[in-house]
């Protein structure tokens, strides 16, 4: 269960990687609703090192951590975890940059859905929550 998306950008991988990571605040469509802060959306950052934070800063100065950087290899790959506040477990995002003629192919893989897409249903009890069930399963399997 993996979401895969790709797009071609007419610039070199070096430029594309740098804009994707260092300049994420300039292009990420925060104002178009792609923010955990809703109306408070202001800025978003990827810290360029493994263990760094992927986070938003809202207009009131508070910050929300979406996840942590798990791979950072310019200009090839950046990977990070991604956890919606309603989910118990994080998902994993990997973004790869590959030369494609004079441009760059950008590929996104978003994995980890076994572990928690439907946490919103938490209030409805255990009986119909696939996500809760699988999260508990995953936690247990990993602890074993």
């Amino acid at each position, binding site marked *: 269960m993996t979401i895969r998306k790709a*797009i071609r950008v007419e*610039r070199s991988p070096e430029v594309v990687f740098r804009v994707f990571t260092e300049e994420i605040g300039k292009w990420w469509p925060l104002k178009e609703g792609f923010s955990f802060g809703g109306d408070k959306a202001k800025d978003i950052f990827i810290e360029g090192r493994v263990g760094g934070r992927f986070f938003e800063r809202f207009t009131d100065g508070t910050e929300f951590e979406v996840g942590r950087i798990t791979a950072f290899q310019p200009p090839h790959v950046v990977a990070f975890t991604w956890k919606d506040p309603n989910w118990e477990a994080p998902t994993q995002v990997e973004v790869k940059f590959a030369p494609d003629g004079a441009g760059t192919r950008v590929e*996104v893989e978003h994995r980890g859905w076994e572990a928690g897409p439907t946490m919103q249903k938490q209030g409805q009890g255990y009986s119909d929550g696939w996500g809760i069930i699988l999260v508990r399963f995953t936690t247990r399997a990993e602890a074993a």
Partner: protein
Amino acid sequence: MPIDTTIGALADSTRRELLRRLADKPCRAGELAEGFTISRPAICKHTRMLGRAGLIRAKKVGRERIYELAPRGQLAVQELIRTLEEVGAFWDGTLNAFKRFVEENR
């Protein structure tokens, strides 16, 4: 349904694969077992566990057993698919915004 029964039912990659196949369409027992390296009796053991957990059910048609997702399994799979579609649309929007920005400004 005790939660532990469900956890046990899902704690195995073969059983998760069986659920994925049944999410596409109901299957005859033979069809459901196709392509696995483990034996038919082993597959039967797995389907019994999924049945006990309330995720799938079997009905008899003539001499054949047809397996399908139980309503509870169906709800769970639909919810998962909806989430995957939403997140997929999210990435489409994000990548398009990225492409526009880079090509207009760099």
